[in-house]
């Protein structure tokens, strides 16, 4: 599964796991950096999903507002 088609829930789940692992510590600097980069990536994916959903919702609302009657 590439990041393009990872679902919101999968991304959020992985993000939570990354955060827990980072918080638990015990990783090397290199590992920590890689984990953090992955976390940022996942957070961005989640945000894209939420932004996209909100944009669609807003578009539908505008369409509804433009409808006659």
């Amino acid at each position, binding site marked *: 599964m590439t990041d393009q088609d990872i679902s919101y829930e999968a991304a959020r789940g992985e993000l939570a796991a990354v955060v827990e692992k980072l*918080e638990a510590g015990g990783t090397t600097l290199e590992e920590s950096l890689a984990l953090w980069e992955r976390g940022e990536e996942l957070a961005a994916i989640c945000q894209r999903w939420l932004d996209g959903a909100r944009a669609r919702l807003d578009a539908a609302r505008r369409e509804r507002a433009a409808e006659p009657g």
Partner: protein
Amino acid sequence: MSEPEKDKSTPERPWPVRVVSQKIGAWVGKLGWVWIDGQLAQISRRPGTQVVFLTLRDPSADLSLTVTAHRDVLDAGAPNLAEGARVVLHAKPEFYPARGTLSLRADEIRQVGLGELLARIERLKRLLAAEGLFDPRLKRRPPFLPHRIGLVTGRASAAERDVLTNARRRWPAVEFRVVNVAVQGPAAVPQMIDALAVLDKDPDVDVIILARGGGSVEDLLPFSDEALCRAVSACRTPIISAIGHETDTPLVDFVADLRASTPTDAAKRVVPDLAEEWQRIGQARARLNRAMTGLLDREQHRLDLLRSRPVLARPELMVDGRLADLTALRDRAGRCLAHRLSAGTDELGHTLARLRALSPAATLQRGYAIVQRPDGTVVREPAQVAPGDALRLRLAGGEVPATVTAS
């Protein structure tokens, strides 16, 4: 076998009309006296004659027979006979050779009373129920929003107006295909059956309303007719019956897919109310919106919480922590080195003091001198030097060069 041979007609020996007429009369006469159940379509009492002509119809099919009866027969059995009445009569078919017509000659006519008619309907109801025609599992659900509604009702009737007006009020775009029929009298049943067949065949019609306004029990009799009930049951299109008032329950109500109490009620059941539907859709949309917005807000909150955790929000901590470790180690290393240095310095001081304690400087101060050769060797014996040798005299205050003159 010569008789049939002789009787057989051929182009060479055709039968005269009188023979054919006589033979038909004989065939017709073979049926003899029968009891017949039918409905009176027409009565004509011609003045000046004792014979009354009746047209007897089948209540369910477009079939009729002419009946003749003596006025006395009519007066004795059914004095107030009117058109549309249900009768049972005892008659014999007769062929009238003079005009080549067939009619029934009745010698007894009985009008079927209302009580008897209702009892017949009850028997028919039990029969149809036993056959399973009223089974709720056979009922088809009319469509929520029909494409086109078939309407079978009387021409320009109140029932027609009630259905059309009320349906249009609820759903202005509603489409009807109306077939007007007789809703009472002898022609009602065959016409309604034909109309149902026509509408059932129309692929655009996806529900049919059979409507009639209120009337007397006799007026509503066609709607309890067996043939009509079977035709309704056989229709593939869902049928809504809307006959008379709330209290009327003709048999067709039991076989119809949906029973409306009145034509107005049928209009309410056949199409949804547009305004009401808009309102429902609006409410559903608002709920949908709220649900989606709520979901997005909750998810955004969860994501924000994750992102605000220090490990993600302040990634520099990851480096800072390690940098602090590094600095501490460097400090420790520095302190360690400084300690070692000062310890070294102290040791050096002590060694110097000890060195100084062993130094000849104090002795020289007291006026002694050290004699050294130029290479630094200390001269301890006179034999060590010869005249002319260069010497160095080390005093407390400095050096004095000298030369040996004699020994």
